[in-house]
């Protein structure tokens, strides 16, 4: 048995108000349940997508590492490191957000500024170019992965929050409202019976008095 809301007056006004509140709570509960279900569906879709991208990242990186090894073999490890640290290529991230069922999720893309001559061409091998483009490709996949991963994370958070609200309505708010409605109804009925009895009593006294006169 859930608790009756504290400070309730057993009046007809209060009863009407509470009935409306119960109706509202139930409607909210249904809506939230629907929201939760569709969020969970979206969540699993995104997870499937994430697995796919994960595999892309893995294969892109494997390729990138093998071309790195080739570049190192041809140019020597020290030279590759030297080139890597003096690279003029600049990569930036562009982040915007979009809304997905009320959840703000990030949209990321890669912005690259490549100078016409990123490094000394006579000193570098073609393998270095291949390696660079492979790593850029891998980076693109990683950025995509980051986007999807943080989408999944935010969806998970929103699902948790929605679930908590649904169960709060289900287990606390609605039963409490219903108990209060029941309490007011009983109290009103009780008062009605008292009134009825009181009228009866008064009536019989009046008729007794009339009989006596």
């Amino acid at each position, binding site marked *: 048995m859930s608790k009756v809301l504290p400070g309730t007056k057993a009046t007809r006004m209060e009863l009407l108000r509470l009935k409306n509140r119960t109706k509202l709570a139930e409607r909210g509960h249904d809506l939230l349940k629907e929201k939760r279900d569709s969020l969970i569906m979206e*969540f699993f879709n995104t997870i499937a997508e994430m697995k796919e991208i994960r595999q892309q990242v893995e294969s892109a990186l494997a390729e990138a590492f093998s071309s*790195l090894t080739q570049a190192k073999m041809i140019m020597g490890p020290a030279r590759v490191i030297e080139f*890597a640290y003096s690279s003029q*290529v600049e990569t930036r991230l562009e982040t915007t957000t979009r809304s997905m069922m009320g959840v703000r999720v990030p949209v990321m893309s890669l912005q690259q500024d490549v100078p016409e001559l990123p490094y000394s061409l006579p000193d570098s091998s073609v393998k270095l170019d291949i390696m660079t483009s492979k*790593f850029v490709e891998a980076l693109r996949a*990683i950025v995509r992965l980051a986007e999807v991963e943080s989408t*999944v994370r935010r969806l998970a958070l929103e*699902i*948790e929050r929605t679930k908590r609200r649904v169960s709060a309505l289900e287990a606390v708010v609605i039963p409490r409202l219903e108990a209060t409605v029941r309490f007011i109804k009983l109290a009103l009925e009780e008062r009605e019976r008292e009134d009825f009895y009181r009228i009866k009593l008064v009536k019989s006294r009046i008729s007794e008095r009339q009989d006596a006169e």
Partner: protein
Amino acid sequence: MINDKIAVIGDRDTVIGFRMAGVKESTIPSNPDETREALVDYFRDPDMGLIIITEPLAKTVEKTILELSVSPVPVIVLIPDRSGSTGAYEKVLKELVRRAVGIEIDI
């Protein structure tokens, strides 16, 4: 919002590769404390949008990563290093699913 920087924490090969691809922030830590320090440093940078860390290194600072991944930005992504994936991210994913749906599901 300007979260446009990318950082890499990884072994030498990973860092070299991403440097060539234009990533400007990078660290090659030699012990877990350095990894954690680098991670927190990059995390505190308000311009940071993405932190890439290799799985073997991530494993040594798992707790810090879990703590930091509560916040939405910057995103921390684990990638396999040249010896291949270790499946460290599956664990993180499973935990997410468990919390969101309430049951453990193999995906």
